[in-house]
């Protein structure tokens, strides 16, 4: 029996994007982005252990506008993945699986990720004496 040409389910392109599905794929995308972001963390730790020029280099790169943009994206990805991960842990306990709860927790996750990201950056600029 030829199974190659059979339609596959789910067909993503026929579904209307919804909050639940969007947040679901965002969890995966931020997870992959954070995996790439670990390279920055490892680089920072190695540079700190080497000291001198190695550390100056990474500090200059992170301190540039592009570096800060990457770090800002990393911060948001981290907080989004963290908050939505907690949402997943509640689902794993069988809590909040009904549709109204899933939407409510979804909006809470977005708000919490934004608040935490902004707080982190306010804290960072504050310790640099820029605020």
């Amino acid at each position, binding site marked *: 029996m030829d199974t190659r040409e059979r339609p596959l389910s789910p067909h993503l392109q026929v579904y209307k994007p919804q909050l639940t599905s969007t947040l679901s794929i965002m969890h*995966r995308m931020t*997870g*992959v982005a*954070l*995996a790439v972001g*670990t*390279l920055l*963390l*490892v680089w920072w*730790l*190695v540079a*700190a*252990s080497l*000291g*001198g020029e190695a*550390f*100056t280099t990474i500090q200059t790169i992170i*301190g540039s506008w592009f570096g800060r943009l990457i770090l800002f994206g990393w*911060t948001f990805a*981290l*907080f989004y993945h*963290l908050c939505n*991960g*907690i949402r*997943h*842990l509640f689902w*794993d306990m069988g809590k909040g699986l009904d549709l109204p709860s899933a939407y409510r927790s979804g909006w809470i996750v977005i708000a919490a990720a934004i608040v935490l990201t902004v707080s*982190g*950056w306010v*804290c*960072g*600029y504050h*310790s*640099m*004496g820029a605020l």
Partner: protein
Amino acid sequence: MSLRTDLGKIRGLGSAKEGVAHWWAQRLTAIALVPLMLWLVINIAHLAGADVKAVQAWIANPVTSVLLILMIVAVFHHMQLGLQVVIEDYVHTEWLKLASIIAVKFAAIALAATSLFAILKIAFAG
């Protein structure tokens, strides 16, 4: 009437033959990472713009060193578990799927070892 054998029930590994080990490890590391990552971000935010001496002094603090080690182990374990699922979902060519998973697992261990060495070097050798 269940068609499962007594041995199959006792092992509890299901049709995938691996049980809940992967799922459970993903959740355990997730729970550990909630406080560890919040701690890391707060501390890195406080270190913004700090010179290398201040960063090294922070890492060399015994509490920091231990928490960083725990964080690195949890991060890379969680990372390779997650990436494995992503690869299994999207890569359908068997050899490429296997090669990608092996590469991810090797990379996770290499990056974790590098990070741990850097932390311990700062902690012990300054």
